[in-house]
């Protein structure tokens, strides 16, 4: 076993097997586990304590700022910067300021969520050692993978982990080069 390996990756046939394996390893106290699936498996993220609140926060903050900015921009333009009379309407036409403000709130809620997801996931991250494993291409197809990083294994014997994974119904276990 090479010390320079990034870790060990195991493939499972079904989502339930992957979930059970992750639960078992977490119960053992193992850290540094990464799980991969071609669709979001229910309960998997919770097992790994993967948070996602940052996305909602990005969304909320960007929506609020955009709303305030849009309203203030309209008010400033109509009342301070270049006031003029149209149709006898007041300068501070707050009912008219509402539709663009609502549009921008919704737009930036959406953009904030997407950016929050990308930032939280650190995407794009073009290089990840898992891509060095050919079989990993199935992660976007029909395979369910579990990756334990070398550092997380500590001084544990690599082959012990391999046996453990085999007992948990992994169908193939491969070393991940850096």
């Amino acid at each position, binding site marked *: 076993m090479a010390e320079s390996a990034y870790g060990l990756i195991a493939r499972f046939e079904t989502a339930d097997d992957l979930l059970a394996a992750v639960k078992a390893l977490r119960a053992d106290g193992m850290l540094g586990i990464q799980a991969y699936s071609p669709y979001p498996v229910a309960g998997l993220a919770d097992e790994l304590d993967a948070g996602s609140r940052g996305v909602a926060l990005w969304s909320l903050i960007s929506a609020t700022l955009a709303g305030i900015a849009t309203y203030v921009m309209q008010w400033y333009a109509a009342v301070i910067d270049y006031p*003029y*009379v*149209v*149709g*006898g*309407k007041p300068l501070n036409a707050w009912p008219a300021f509402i539709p663009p403000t609502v549009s921008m709130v919704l737009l930036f809620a959406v953009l904030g969520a997407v950016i929050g997801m990308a930032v939280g996931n650190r995407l794009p991250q073009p290089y990840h050692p898992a891509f060095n494993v050919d079989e990993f291409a199935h992660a976007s197809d029909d395979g369910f993978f579990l990756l334990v990083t070398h550092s997380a294994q500590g001084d544990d014997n690599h082959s012990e982990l391999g046996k453990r994974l085999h007992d948990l119904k992994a169908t193939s276990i491969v070393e991940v080069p850096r």
Partner: protein
Amino acid sequence: MVGKSEVLRGHDMHWIRIDRYFEGQPEAPSMIFQPVTCMHCENAPCEYVCPFAATQHSAEGLNEMIYNRCVGTRYCSQNCPYKVRRFNWFTYTDKDAPHSTPPPAHNPDVTVRSGGVMEKCTYCVQRINAVKIAAARTDEPNNGRIADGAIVTACQQACPTDAIVFGDVADETTRVSREKASPLDYDLLGDLNTRPRTSYKAAVRNPNPAIGSPDAPYVEKGRVKG
């Protein structure tokens, strides 16, 4: 000029039109007519729908059309209940246009409009400004007021019966203010609350039935402007 085929399509460009209403027998109808121009409404429905602020209300009460800001959405025309606004559907003033007026025939005081912009009656703003500039240049103290009757709009000048009156409605002594104070004064489509500055004066006729036939044509309305 836009030419006959364009006028037939409804692309005519008259800034003033005469609406005619017929009544009575088809063989000998009587006619009522009413000249209609831009009303320069205080609550102009055309102004607040322009997305580019190309039509605004001046402090003097004119509904101003800003040709170089107009991008041609035609929302103002849609919202005008009097439909007094006209649009340059093509570049009628281009020298290659089919019925283009030769440049020497253009009025030098009036902006030439390009294709894609709205235009309408301006209360002869070029005449208003000419008088104001001349008055500002003299040394006579006039407290910023122009003498009543100094500004004469083109339609007022053309009218042989002096049926159009133009002036300052903020000054109660002007002729137009006195005419508007008449109980016969009314606004066209006034219930829409557009508050038009151009109002009309109803003419009351009471023909003696003993003279002439009841079907004789008669004129009912004159109008007053301010």
